[in-house]
């Protein structure tokens, strides 16, 4: 490329922002759980993968489930509602099995148990849906559409808009509602929150559910761009994790900006530098940030308590 091509670069920017929005949503899921219980959830990627499979099962005219072809196609809205209801249950169950019994045992056992759940879910998905990737349609039935000279994938715009709405919703939830304030209080200091009458156990459960829903929504958004496979969540989750560190771990604006930044830089880097190393870019940024400013762009200074 000899000459700077504005249109091509703008198109890269849009797709970078779209994938970055996905990282941002998943990163938010990480940060909320981390803030609430002090543990990184290694099954966060499966919070993206599992609902995508469920959605695919009911969106597609024919899907192979346990080796038999089923025809369970439902209207789109019904599918989305169904997936959300199922994932609320899933979040509660996850909290109950993988976190609750280990809540007083430090972070390592919880990390291991979330890894166990992640292995379980990935292989449960393979067992249920086989190893053929599934392709689910986007909301709009067209490849690209034109805004002036720009050709944009409609799904990219859907992703960006939905993410923006979700972030606005979350802001209102945390700033304006009692539930949101209880969630923030729990994140700040569980013991004190309990003292002032917050039912911490319940708030933690709600946090897991909310995090599962963030994963669900990012899965539903991103699945039309990629394919639905048992591995789809793993790399997204790792990069989202990197994004949350780059932004400053524990910081909600940090997670959003870190996610967007990694999506954009990775898209440009994959185009201009090397497509073989696209997946490494996020981690190179991560290591650079960790070395230069370990607390991330928006993080508070990490001081160790004696």
């Amino acid at each position: 490329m000899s000459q700077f091509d504005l249109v091509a670069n703008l198109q890269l920017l849009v797709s970078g922002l779209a994938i970055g929005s996905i990282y941002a949503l998943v990163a938010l899921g990480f940060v909320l759980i981390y803030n609430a219980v002090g543990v990184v959830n290694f099954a966060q990627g499966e919070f993206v993968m599992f609902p995508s499979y469920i959605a695919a099962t009911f969106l597609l005219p024919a899907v192979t489930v346990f080796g038999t072809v089923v025809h369970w196609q439902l209207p789109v809205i019904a599918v989305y509602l169904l997936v959300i209801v199922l994932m609320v249950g899933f979040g509660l169950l996850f909290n109950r099995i993988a976190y609750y019994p280990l809540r007083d045992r430090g972070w390592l056992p919880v990390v291991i148990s979330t890894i166990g759940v992640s292995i379980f879910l990935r292989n449960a998905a393979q067992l249920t849906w086989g190893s053929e990737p599934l392709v689910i349609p986007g909301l709009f039935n067209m490849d690209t559409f034109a805004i002036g000279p720009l050709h944009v994938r409609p799904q990219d715009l859907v992703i960006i808009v939905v993410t923006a709405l979700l972030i606005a919703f979350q802001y209102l939830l945390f700033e304006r509602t009692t539930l949101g304030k209880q969630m923030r209080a729990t994140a700040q200091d569980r013991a004190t929150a309990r003292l002032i009458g917050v039912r911490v156990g319940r708030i933690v459960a709600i946090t897991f559910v909310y995090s599962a829903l963030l994963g669900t929504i990012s899965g539903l958004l991103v699945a039309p761009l990629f394919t639905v496979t048992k591995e789809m969540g793993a790399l997204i989750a790792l990069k989202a994790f990197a994004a949350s560190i780059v932004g400053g771990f524990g910081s909600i604006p940090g997670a959003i900006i870190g996610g967007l930044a990694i999506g954009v830089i990775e898209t440009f880097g994959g185009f201009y530098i090397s497509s073989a190393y696209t997946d490494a870019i996020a981690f190179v940024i991560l290591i650079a940030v960790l070395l230069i400013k370990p607390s991330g762009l928006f993080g508070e200074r990490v001081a160790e308590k004696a």
Partner: protein
Amino acid sequence: MTSRDPARLRGVLLLGIAIVAVALVPLVVHSDYILNLCGVAGIYAIAVMGLGILLGFTGQMSLAQAAFFGIGAYTSGWFTTTLGWSVWPAMALAVVLSALIGLAVGYPCLRLSGHYLALATIGFGIITQLVLINWKSVTNGSDGMTGIPPPQIGSFVFDTYGKYYYLVLVAVLVCAYIAWRIKTTRVGRALEAIRENEIAARACGIDATRYKIVAFVLAGAYAGLAGSLLAHDTKFLSPDSYSFDQSVVFLVMLVVGGSSSIGGAILGAVLLTFLPEVLRPLKTSYIMVYGAAVVVMVIFMPRGLAGLIEVARARFSRGAPPPGSSVSVVAAGATGAEPA
């Protein structure tokens, strides 16, 4: 000297019996398949012990153990195939190189701890795997590296699973002995002090920076040796074997075994190498069951297999709990515990 202490004597005796029993396995088991698995379990045990020095002794989390494992394997593979070195110097180089890279990774990571350190090591692991896949002129990319020779001493070639079993067994014992020496001497106590409370350790005059680097280097060296042993065992290398998932497997082996116990690390590696094979009759669902088993083990065996065995031993000897058991309860609880 406390060698007259009957409890200690009994412990040494039990250990000796265990080693002899393990050494007799190839005389009883003739299935190449099982002997190969035993060898692989031993190789994993070495990598897991290395992780144990870093995480169990020192409290520093790493999810890059498979990357060092891969660096060891590919160093050994490349020097013996492309450059035609004989196996032993290549193996030594694999250990040294992994240790040096451990130093290079450990040094900048020192200011990180807990989840941050885990993340940085994940990043390092993923980059390493991408390099293994894409640096085709050296690693042959996804096609993998073939034709790696077996080690030999004079005219004795370690070319059967039975012979290789003994090579691995010797390596495991040497590594376990070194780890035990580290644990029970000044260095080990310094590492433990850092794990329990780094600030307090520094206040006592422990050069925490230096000791943490030592732990990183040792973890790298152990993984490098394990990788090299695997390369000359399977004689084929593919970048898939050195993924993030493999690092997770090492971590799970360590925690299931009992993170600050050397015997636990070995037991965890052996158990989790054989568990998928035992579950294989379940066909496609076996890895799923494996995942569930990991969750169950973490919930119901708080101190891993090592803790379980200690409890069993205490129950058999009826009297007072074995010396040091209360200390190890504290240690196991503290591993991974963060100030809330």
